[in-house]
């Protein structure tokens, strides 16, 4: 049993990670950090740089949390990657960050969060940026 967190190098992503760490601390479980990219553009801001990833790993090690950091680039959506990780690690909680979207933006782009909420087989904790969990 484990906790999956969808991580992005943004305020929302950081908030999600913080919330996930708090949850993991409560009852020491495996924390899986998923930071994926579809890999379909030359530059992807949502794909964290190596320094950030090693920073996260260092911190989790220091806190004594069992963890796994994944950066899959397989052409899949972030939502699918998170759901896949949840399936694979039999997650009991998924933590994601939310950000405001205009209705038009939602219509055109769809919403990763919505996709995860609808498809997940376990509780999903959605966190907003700048908000203590």
């Amino acid at each position, binding site marked *: 049993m484990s906790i999956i967190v969808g991580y992005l190098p943004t305020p929302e992503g950081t908030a999600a990670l913080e919330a996930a760490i708090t949850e993991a601390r409560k009852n020491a479980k495996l924390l899986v950090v998923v930071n994926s*990219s579809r*890999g379909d*553009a*030359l*530059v992807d801001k949502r794909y964290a740089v190596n320094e950030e990833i090693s920073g996260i790993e260092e911190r989790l090690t220091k806190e004594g949390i069992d963890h796994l950091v994944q950066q899959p*680039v397989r052409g899949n959506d972030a939502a699918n990657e998170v759901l896949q990780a949840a399936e694979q690690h039999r997650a009991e909680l998924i933590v994601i960050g939310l950000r405001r979207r205009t209705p038009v933006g939602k219509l055109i782009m769809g919403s990763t969060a919505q996709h995860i909420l609808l498809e997940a087989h376990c509780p999903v904790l959605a966190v907003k940026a700048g908000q203590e969990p």
Partner: protein
Amino acid sequence: MDVFSSLMDGFATALTPMNLLYAVIGVVLGTAVGVLPGLGPAMTVALLLPVTYALEPTGAFIMFAGIYYGGMYGGSTTSILLNTPGESSSVVTAIEGNKMAKAGRAAQALATAAIGSFIAGTIGTTLLAVCAPIVVQFAVSLGSPSYFAIMVLALLAVTAVLGSSRLRGFASLGLGLAIGLVGMDSVTGQQRLTFGVPLLADGLDIVVVAVAIFAVGEALWVAAHLRRTPLHIIPVGRPWMGKEDWKRSWKPWLRGTAFGFPFGALPAGGAEIPTFLSYVTEKRLSKHPEEFGHGAIEGVAGPEAANNAAAAGTLTPMLALGLPTNATAAVMLAAFTSYGIQPGPQLFATEGPLVWALIASLFIGNLLLLIINLPLAPVWAKLLQLPRPYLYAGILFFATLGAYSVNLQAFDLVMLLVLGALGFMMRRFGLPVLPLVLGVILGPRLEGQLRKTLQLSAGDPAGLWSEPIAVWIYVVVAVILFWPLLMRFWRKARPEAVPAVAGRHVTTAPDAASTNDENADTRALDDGATDTSQTTPAGRQENP
């Protein structure tokens, strides 16, 4: 009419609202394709060729010129922020530029590149305006024999000097000349290489060939080797420079311009060699040699000025002699032909207003580029997040649309696919595409001059060298052709004098940046017979 008043007339034409609009479209498109991966100015101009049939030539060429210069500006942005030089001419910029960006000086690197490009472009265009009429005056005094010799020189120089393997260059040239033969022989009216297909009787449309080779071939090739791991872009604000940066930049700008223009104007001089020369010179002259390799601003200022001056230089033989020396110029020349405008020394006389408006628009385009590039650099960098499927699907979509709209025949699309597959194969096996395109464009003109020459001499081959200029040019041609032999001879005589670079294979552009020093040194020593022990040209050729 003297140069100045012609140029003023040119400005009057170029500054009309419509033409100004085309210039703006051109520079915006140019910068975008320079920034976008997988797209370059040659491909873009090729894709736009059919669209321009509906425009009058002046507007179309003003737009093309904007794309050409804009591509040069945009290329430096990716070199600096991503260390992925899109064109071989910005490989050198990436060496110091990316180091500067990593050290938090991206804004200054972008600023010195943009301002340097502006200065070099402006000086280069001035030189173009001054030199081109002189070259024309010289060229109109030449007869067919000399003109034939010059075309041979241009073809062989591009084939033999650029690229990593002469043999493969000549193979590509041969294919291009063969494609150029297709259609009706202009003198006897017989069909050549048409295989009884009536649709081939008019020859292959140059638009279809250019779009196939530059756009379809490239899109298929990139699709086959898509880079999957995302790169990390260095965040940047608005470019600016401090006093110290200005002080360290202005001399390299001027020196870079001095290197760039003449090399650009030479057949096969290209933009790579001057950028490299500029880099080496700045490294030697710098008061801060220790900064080189860690982000020296001179190393960005000089090469960026050099490649923009080279771009202006390239237009000199293109406009004055009708000789393209790089891919973009080749496609622009194809555009002249498709408008029924005969390129060559007579161009200034027959199409004076068009040519001068084009030159004036280069000055305007340069200024526009400086204005849109300095404040908007962060916006351009955002383009890199465009998902690839749309980018390459878009290239194929517009390539198809362009090729189809020429004659509204599905047959052209079949040719597009066949030639696109050829372009794919050439990229796969290291055959440079530029000689092929030049062969297609220059081949028929070359044959025309040959026939004219021998007609004048009543079939006596001596007619080919009946003018002193022609003789001199053939000497140069011989030197270029036998250069590897000469070098081998020289090497034998003084074996220690030749730098030994063997067995290096540089494939990815970022790596190429670091090893470019050796590459440029040994480019001239390349020899088709010993390919495995060769360096490769850094990055790729000027084609997109």
